[in-house]
């Protein structure tokens, strides 16, 4: 008979030590103990256990007989253990998630819409009632002097015709993602004011939408300059010469006038440039009436006080004389003459804060002040301090370190170089022509230098910068022409070069710092029909000189002095520039060269710099080259330093020392 029992698996340690499983016999074992298959504890063989921890097991173990008899032991049955599992968990908690509604705070800004903004279109510039009277040109002996071709009538200002609008080009640039935004300057603090700028459309859109006329589409960097100037109350546009500062300033003025931000603008420039500015206004803002302040004092007083003209042009030379006109007060103590914007061209003119011009400029009542210059620093950081006394008095102080100066002015100054923005401008090629003086020149030169240095030495403590300067000038003039024989190695070289230039049908400008030298060159080159442009040419004739040089193919050369020809003239049809002698300051030389090398240049501009070897010219050039290199470094770091020859440097040309300085040391 087979017996099966249900047996719980146990650990080895739990097992009764006397039991022997699986039929193994213990030495003390008795017969295997089994349950009969019909026992209630036995399971059918075919059934499997519902719990895998139980399995059929055949037992064989020894039973010790109880004293009460082993049959009784069988009747007691096997011990059964029970376990209890709790099925119910902890009580449920209900959580409610409320997405809620976000509390949204809103800031609102309302702007003066375009249609509310005052505009030049259809509105008299001064806001007064239209007079209906035609205002005539400057030469009109009766009417008020408007210099442009436009007229102001009761129906507003009529633009000149015949100039193309380049809206499509501007919009194409905009579509290509090359728009320029007018960003608020750092000194605009209120968020509302800043948003007023940020939310305006890009400049390209404004220009295109208003159908503003331009002779040609402005370059992108020029629009960047306009966007820079437009929002600023104090700004320096310090682009390198030839990048179009004039156009950028005029366009910014034009936009400000048309949107009613300004109504009275004064432009101040050197006297020789007045006609140039007038012409540029006609070109770039043909609808804006322009008046030049000039003539007799009584007339000028009236011009200063006239409020119906949006743009007036005055020259620096005039300001000290007219100061009483524009500083006069009315009965309420307010200035009778005031401007919304004053723009200084060639603003290095006011670098000397103590100068009469600087003081006169600063006395003009104004809301906005802009300065235009290609050389914001000609000599030292003081130049910049002087310009800022006009822009924002007290903003800079002379004792500021260059680095701090650079960071302080960063938001006020925009300077780009041709290399940065005009990648397609024809190259500017320099040729340093080292000239050996003729024997006659050498003889005169050596004698003059020997005598001059001897005389300076004899002066001892009496020596001044003026004494040294006189000797330098004397020697430089000998390098040009021998005053005894008229010999000139430079002239020989110039003649050879000009022959080649004339054969190719090109034109050239020749610069010198002396009118006498220019006239001598002109006398020797009659075949090229030379024209003159220097300080002795009356300003009224200068424009005609430029016109003839540009239009008449017979005039092949223009003889210019650095002083008269270094600023504000456009001579980009010229391919050759000669520096017959060198100026003291490389910045002035650069300005002169850039008359030809600027936007619109027809081809490469070749600059020939004459240099008499082993002379004072070479010594000066060495110092200037060092300064030029320094200038480049300075501008990239916005840390201007002194550029022109210092007093010490001029003395050092002859191994001399300033009395009481080096010698004492």
């Amino acid at each position: 008979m087979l017996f099966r029992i249900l047996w719980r698996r146990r650990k080895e340690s739990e097992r009764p030590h006397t039991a022997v499983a699986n039929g193994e016999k213990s030495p003390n074992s008795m017969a295997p103990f089994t349950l009969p298959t019909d026992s209630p504890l036995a399971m059918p063989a075919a059934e499997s256990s519902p719990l895998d921890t139980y399995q059929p097991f055949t037992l064989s173990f020894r039973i010790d007989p109880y004293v009460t008899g082993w049959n009784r032991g069988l009747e007691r049955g096997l011990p059964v253990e029970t376990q209890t599992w709790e099925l119910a968990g902890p009580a449920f908690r209900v959580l409610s998630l409320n997405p809620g509604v976000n509390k949204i705070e809103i800031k609102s800004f309302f702007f003066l819409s375009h249609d509310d903004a005052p505009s030049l279109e259809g509105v008299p510039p001064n806001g007064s009632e239209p007079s209906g009277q035609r205002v005539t040109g400057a030469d009109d002996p009766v009417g008020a002097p408007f210099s442009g071709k436009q007229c102001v009538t009761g129906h507003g200002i009529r633009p000149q015709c015949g100039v193309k609008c380049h809206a499509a080009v501007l919009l194409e640039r905009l579509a290509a993602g090359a728009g320029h935004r007018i960003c608020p300057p750092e000194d605009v603090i209120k968020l509302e004011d800043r948003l007023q700028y940020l939310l305006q459309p890009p400049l390209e859109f404004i220009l295109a939408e208003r159908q503003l006329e331009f002779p040609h589409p402005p370059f992108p960097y020029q629009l960047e300059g306009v966007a820079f100037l437009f929002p600023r109350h104090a700004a320096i546009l310090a682009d390198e010469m030839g990048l179009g500062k004039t156009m950028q300033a005029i366009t910014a003025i034009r936009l400000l006038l048309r949107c009613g931000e300004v109504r009275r603008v004064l432009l101040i420039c050197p006297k020789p440039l007045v006609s140039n500015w007038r012409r540029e206004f006609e070109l770039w803002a043909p609808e804006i009436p322009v008046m030049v302040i000039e003539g007799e004092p009584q007339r000028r007083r009236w011009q200063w006080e006239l409020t119906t003209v949006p743009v007036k042009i005055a020259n620096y030379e005039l300001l000290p004389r007219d100061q009483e006109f524009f500083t006069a007060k009315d009965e309420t103590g307010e200035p009778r003459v005031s401007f919304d914007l004053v723009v200084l061209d060639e603003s290095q003119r006011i670098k000397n804060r103590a100068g009469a011009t600087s003081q006169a400029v600063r006395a003009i009542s104004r809301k906005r002040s802009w300065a235009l210059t290609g050389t914001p620093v000609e000599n030292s950081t003081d130049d910049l301090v002087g310009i800022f006394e006009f822009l924002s008095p007290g903003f800079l102080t002379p004792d500021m370190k260059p680095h701090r100066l650079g960071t302080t002015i960063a938001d006020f100054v925009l300077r780009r170089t041709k290399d940065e923005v005009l990648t397609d401008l024809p190259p500017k090629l320099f040729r340093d022509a080292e000239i050996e003086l003729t024997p006659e020149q050498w003889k005169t030169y050596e004698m003059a230098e020997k005598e001059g240095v001897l005389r300076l030495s004899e002066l001892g403590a009496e020596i001044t910068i003026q004494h040294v300067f006189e000797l330098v000038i004397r020697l430089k003039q000998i390098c040009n022409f021998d005053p005894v024989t008229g010999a000139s190695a430079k002239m020989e070289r110039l003649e050879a070069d000009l022959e080649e230039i004339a054969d190719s049908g090109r034109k050239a400008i020749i610069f010198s710092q002396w009118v006498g030298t220019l006239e001598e060159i002109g006398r020797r080159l009659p075949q090229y029909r030379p024209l003159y442009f220097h300080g002795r040419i009356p300003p009224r004739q200068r424009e005609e000189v430029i016109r003839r040089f540009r239009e008449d193919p017979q005039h092949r050369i223009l003889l210019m002095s650095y002083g008269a020809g270094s600023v504000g003239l456009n001579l980009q049809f010229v391919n050759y520039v000669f520096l017959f002698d060198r100026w003291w300051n490389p910045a002035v030389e650069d300005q002169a060269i850039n008359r030809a090398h600027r936007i619109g240049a027809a081809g490469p501009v070749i600059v020939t710099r004459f240099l008499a070897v082993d002379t004072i010219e070479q010594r000066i050039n060495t110092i200037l080259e060092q300064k030029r290199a320094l200038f480049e470094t300075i501008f990239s770091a916005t840390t201007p330093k002194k550029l022109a020859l210092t007093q010490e440097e001029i003395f050092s040309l002859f191994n001399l020392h300033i009395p009481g300085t080096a010698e004492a040391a």
Partner: protein
Amino acid sequence: MKQQDNVGTRLSLRLGFFTAIPLADGGYVGGYLILNGVGRPIEFHCTTPVRPTRAQEILYGPTLKPYLLGEQMAPALIAKAKSPAEIILVTEWEALTLCQVVEQPVALVLSPETSAAVEPGSAQSAASATWNHSVNGPRSPGAAILECGVLPACQTLQIGRNTLLVPESSVEGITRVQEYLSPWAGAFDLLEPFGRIRAALEEALRRG
């Protein structure tokens, strides 16, 4: 609205532009700009930062941004405006749900890249292209939900150089403006004002 080249009429036109920029911590700031017909700003309204709650993140899941932009921020901004806009343009597809909340016609201005992928006249392909294109936002799980019916049926319209995705309920209103603006179609870019809003929002955040 007369279709005539009259600056005065253009000046009286009001176009609304809504967009929002995300914040580093997960919220958004929204801006609503109203321009006249020559692109000049008339009104600008912006929200302070709006941050979704954790409960909103959980419960709204992928539809959180459509909810915040289209149902919370944009309606609140539009309600502040004094000049009612003829149409309201948005640049995030999530904000297109705005059309179910406001009365004005609403349209999504597609980016040039997305526009190029859109088959003209095919509403479904327009929607798919929009949602699939990274320029208007990478495809998210929310897009799938919208595809299932949250977003109304749309069709494409052209205004100037811009392609618009327009819910059917807004087509009539947008078409009216489309016809009106057609003489100056080449003169404006309807995506450009969104750049102004973003610049203004960033400025507002910088200035606190």
